[in-house]
């Protein structure tokens, strides 16, 4: 089983590397979008899939990252290569400050709190005109400065940039959830009281998972900002947070690879129904209901069932 999945991952990465050589610009553009969503769902999985707390504000951290990185480079002339890690650290710290009090609330109450926090961030981005240019959007964001002669204003270079950091982040997440700390996170998801009773500092680990998850979403936001070079608050509205939740659920929470596949599938599905935008979220909701009714573990659950595993 392990060998087969390694082969599948290797084949997928080779296909991803070849896409810019074979596909049209439109396809490349969609795949970049899918990869950004994959970073978001994978980082979301660390919190909700592995640690347990259900969050509805992942797009808020994505947006904070995008705006932070854009404003840093626009206002101070800072290079993307410096703004990118600074954004990650800043969103991490910001999330720690928010998560520390918020994660004292458990269960549904926490989920509702994150929902309102997500909406608050959206309203902040929309109304802080001096900082974010509000509903007019932030323009003139520069692409990453070229290094080694690679010009990142080109679509192909942007593609490989997102692919490179996407793989890096997913590998990091994979190693993290397999580590001793990862084991502690899963123990919190399975039984928080028991985890606490055997000496795991559950509040610390929950805040850690929340902050790392947010920091990575912020970095995805930074990549987005310097690829699209135009930011609008609606890109980070609550509906996007819901979409990340749906993508992760469709793929299978707590599996890391599942949410990544979910991100890919849902992105392409949304492109297919682009001619009928009002149908998109209705169809998405139906997809979600079907998954929850028939296979709560998502596509990974179906995959395991076919293989006869639990």
């Amino acid at each position: 089983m392990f060998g087969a999945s390694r082969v599948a991952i290797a084949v997928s990465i080779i296909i991803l590397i070849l896409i810019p050589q074979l596909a049209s610009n439109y396809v490349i553009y969609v795949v970049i979008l899918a990869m950004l969503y994959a970073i978001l769902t994978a980082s979301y999985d660390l919190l909700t899939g592995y640690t347990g707390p259900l969050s509805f504000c992942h797009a808020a951290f994505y947006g904070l990252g995008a705006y932070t990185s854009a404003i840093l480079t626009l206002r101070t002339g800072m290079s993307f290569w410096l703004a990118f890690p600074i954004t990650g650290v800043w969103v991490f710290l910001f999330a720690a400050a928010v998560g520390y009090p918020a994660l004292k609330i458990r269960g549904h109450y926490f989920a509702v709190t994150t929902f309102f926090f997500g909406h608050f961030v959206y309203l902040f981005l929309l109304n802080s005109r001096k900082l974010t240019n509000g509903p007019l959007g932030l323009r003139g964001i520069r692409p990453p400065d070229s290094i080694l002669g690679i010009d990142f204003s080109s679509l192909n270079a942007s593609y490989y940039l997102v692919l490179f950091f996407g793989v890096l982040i997913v590998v990091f997440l994979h190693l993290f959830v397999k580590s001793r700390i990862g084991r502690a996170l899963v123990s919190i998801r399975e039984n928080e009281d028991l985890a606490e009773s055997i000496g795991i500092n559950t509040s610390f680990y929950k805040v850690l998972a929340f902050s790392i998850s947010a920091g990575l979403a912020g970095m995805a936001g930074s990549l987005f900002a310097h690829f699209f070079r135009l930011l609008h608050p609606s890109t980070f509205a609550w509906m996007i947070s819901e979409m990340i939740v749906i993508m992760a659920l469709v793929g299978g929470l707590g599996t890391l690879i599942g949410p990544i596949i979910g991100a890919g599938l849902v992105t392409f599905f949304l492109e297919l129904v682009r001619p009928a935008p009002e149908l998109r979220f209705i169809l998405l909701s139906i997809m979600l209901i079907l998954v929850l009714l028939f296979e709560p573990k998502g596509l990974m659950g179906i995959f395991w069932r076919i293989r006869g595993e639990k």
Partner: protein
Amino acid sequence: MFLSITDLFVNYGKLEVLKGVSMEIEEGEISLLLGANGSGKSTLLKTITGLNRPISGSIRFQETKINGMASYDILRLGIAHILEGRKIFPLMTVLENLELGAYSRKNKREIARDIEAMCERFPILGQKRKEQSGNLSGGEQQTLVIALALMTKAKLLLMDEPSQGLSPLLVNEIANTITGLNRDGLSIVLVEHNLRLGLSIADKVYVLENGKIAFEANSTDLSGVEYAQKIYLGG
């Protein structure tokens, strides 16, 4: 004194649950905590291990004041708590559960040795070490719960209703396990509704009533019927 509780008050919101509990627990003993439903037995255990915060009063363990400390720090001092309701990590294997029990410990070689010792002490866990623990039977899960707590290397074990939902045969097995652990030097505070089990192994009995210790005695002082009267009809 091993564990010393003085004038402990605990509230849930406005509801007063413990109203001045004082007790002294000696090293090496099995202390049985009795009381009707809602008398505050589980609350008392949770307060000792930092899962509840007292309003006032003090808890000292081997001369260290532990009320106000975080659960994980209290555990490091040597008090482990088996929560009510057979709590394990159901999606993890037996082995992974045992490893997590030793989470607060650093020495890997010692942990590996202790896991082996656990599997010898409880052969059923050894046989099923690779199995998902949620698939074990009730009795096997209760054994795992105890083993999990032992992996913390506690000196004092608080057990909340270990016999709950188990068949009489398994109850006897749990009783044997508890006395065996006690013989090896572990001190135990036991909350148990099964009077026969509790009285057959306890050294000392405490009856909690209306948020206070209404009565304490050596387990041999009174008969089971007399204890039952004290609990359910008032001490």
